[in-house]
């Protein structure tokens, strides 16, 4: 294995910036496009991998939410990720990230129209992605109504971040399902 100055610099100064061993992730990032990603990151080059490469990773390629995940963690909001974004993403999705952090990003993922609220259309899109469009219109509507009934605390017909986090606290499975093993 090489001596990678960026990783050494990174890990010496910030041993705890992520929840993860860094060099393994760096090599995974590099393996997606070896001709684009240099080995030497000391100059902090501005390298951005397009969404298609990220979405083709085996951990993500079958996930129905992969596009939203890439959009949420990328800087430009389109899914093109720098190394920082990549590390951020897998750090939050690791098993050691705290629940509040995961809940915050999960909220962003399910918020399709980026308006900081989970409204009915967001829920419908989430539901369709979850069940592969197999529920009938009637059933989708009923489930969305039920979800808003259960989780909406301030009665505005849509879920804010606090409603979401409040509901996540009562769901102990969340930590184990919102987790990608890499």
């Amino acid at each position, binding site marked *: 294995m090489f001596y990678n100055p960026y990783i050494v610099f990174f890990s010496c*100064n910030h041993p705890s*910036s992520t929840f993860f061993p860094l060099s393994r992730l760096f090599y995974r990032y590099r393996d997606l496009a070896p001709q684009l990603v240099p080995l030497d990151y000391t100059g902090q080059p501005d390298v951005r991998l397009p969404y298609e490469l990220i979405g083709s990773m085996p951990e993500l390629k*079958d996930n*129905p939410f992969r596009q939203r995940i890439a959009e949420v963690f990328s800087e430009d909001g389109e899914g093109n990720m720098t190394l920082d974004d990549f590390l951020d993403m897998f750090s939050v999705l690791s098993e050691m990230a705290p629940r*509040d952090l995961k809940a915050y990003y999960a909220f962003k993922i399910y918020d399709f129209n980026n308006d900081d609220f989970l409204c009915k259309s967001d829920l419908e899109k989430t539901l369709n992605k979850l*069940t592969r469009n197999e*529920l009938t219109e009637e059933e989708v509507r009923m489930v969305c109504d039920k979800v808003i009934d259960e989780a909406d605390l*301030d009665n505005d017909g849509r879920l804010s971040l606090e409603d979401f986090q409040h509901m996540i606290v009562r769901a102990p499975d969340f930590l184990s*399902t919102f987790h990608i093993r890499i």
Partner: protein
Amino acid sequence: MELSELQRQGSAIGDSYHGAQQSVRLRSKSVASNQNGPLFDWCSFPTERGEDGESEPVQDLRERPMPMRLKRAIREVQQMRVPVVTNWQSWKRSKAKSLRRFRADTEGALSSIALWRKALLNIGGQFGGGVQSYFIFLRFLVVLNFLSFFLIAGFVLIPSIVFQITSTNNTTVDSSGKEDCTVYDPNPQGLVLFYQYFLDLLSGTGFMEYSYVFYGYYNNTVADSGSFHYNLPLAYLLTCVFYFAFCLICIIARMGRALRIAIATGSGTVGSYSKIVFTGWDYGCQGDRTTKLKQKNLHYQLQLDLEEQRLQKKAASLTLGQTVGLYSLRMFLMLLSITLIGVAFYCIFKATVFSQGKNENTGLLGLIYEYLPSIVITAGNFVVPFMCDQIAQFEKYSPSTTIIMALLRSVFLRMVSLGVLLFSLWSSITCFDNLQDCRSCLYNHNQYPCWETRVGQEMYKLTLFDFLITVAMLILVEFPRRFFVDHWSCALTRWVGRQEFLVPSNVLGLVYGQTVVWTGALFCPLLPLINTLKFFILFYCKKVTLFSNCRPAVKTFRSTTSTIFFLVVLLFGWGLALVALIYSLAQIHPSWSCGPFRSLETMWSIVPNTFYTLSLTTQEFLFYMGSQAFSIPLFISSCVVLCYVAALASVYGRSVDLLKAELKMEGRDKHFLVKLIDEQRRKMGDRVDTFDTGAPN
């Protein structure tokens, strides 16, 4: 401590919300707006809070939802600020930091060498949390049995071997009188056919009977050489008692962990729909097939919940006559299933009594007679739940209630059938129906020259038979089923389909096996070791069948509540074994001819006998501990501790509710303030308009 954690979480939610708000703006709008507003309080000094001063700012930083670049910059700034401390404080800090790192490294190392960690992760990823919890439970039982074996080996087996080898220097107490009661000759006479060894291995007779495996081989040696004094019977008894206590402590510790999570997440009705929608998707799912299955699973779950709601609405709208009819139908069907279970119990009783009476047959027929109780129990465990399931279809409960009822019935059937077996054994040993036989030796010495070994053999046979049946099912039923379903497609195979890994019935099998081991541990000291091997091999067998033959279940089990359920059933089995143990220790006369308790009235009487050989002061001290002057204050103080803990739990529950209400209130306040601001703005707008229109004139 946990209260402050809750409060910290509450404020962290608020904090992260503020941070999140601004960071959301940061990410979704242009890069130029990067300079807006303080995202992080740059002036904050990493404050020290005891030894954890170093970790607090670092933890805070990691947990904030900020882009990596910003976190790095902040950390650089933080590191530049070196707090001025004394030599002693800086030494303390560096020591604390290295201790924390050491602890984290050790935890990481321990978790990486945990048994079957990768296999469990693999299972969880492909089949979900419910199936994974079964395998975690199995691993727990393997470790429990292995550690118990060390306990037994250290205090009973090894001293016994040592005393056997160095058979000088010990005193065996002679059992005088009762000549015909001490006749016991387990060693086979004359030529033994070669297959007899195999049959003996399966039934625990012959060469296995008089060996370390069973109770009968151990002597009542009391080694007394100078300063070394070892009372083997006392050690045997106390080891067994401590074994039970050890298992109880392990189970309760594990249950405590699971309950803490369940209680902390609130006891109110958690929204099942929101849970499915937001936490149902397992992001670790990989592979096209698994993803499709998971989606179908979620679809089915949602449909099931909607269906249950429809049923509930229908049930609520029944007329009085229909309700009465439904309840009477349910009562009748319940009686029917209880009758079925009762019939199974009677069959087990009869089979055991019959098998005990047939000692003399040898060969294959003899083996079948020996195994008759096990065969009947296993057959009952297959047939009765199947028939109860068919009955349950007419009971028209909601799907979740049906599952719970089926589980309760299975648990009842399995545990009580074991109890019936034990009862029938004991009634033959203590001559329930024919008191003549027990007159001379206080137990049925004709049929049972060494009754403890007999009971141990029965438990050994049950364990072995359970294992053999599982392996036989694997080879003869599960693999062929998959073969036929995959390679033949007719209506029958399509209806039968691939097998599903049913978690509850598998778990009940494990609990049953463990209960048998607990019951038999007193009479067969090596049974925990045999069980460890059995469960170890079972893990691999079940894993193989899971990956080759099973399709992922459509109905999944919620993993956290199911852990508690498994442990509760295990505790129930433990209670049953404890009753059996107490009865054997305190009521039945030990055999005259074998074992470490051969000259005593009951097994328990070794304890008082040894007690009176202790020094006078120790005796007085122990008497005092047992007297009222000590035990009543102890009882009162433990009641006080119990009340305190209960009060603490209720206070936490109430503070959770208060915090929830506070959250709601904050949301409403925000709305109210936003509305006020809107109104004010509108008013200002109107006033400006009237101003404008008023001025030029």
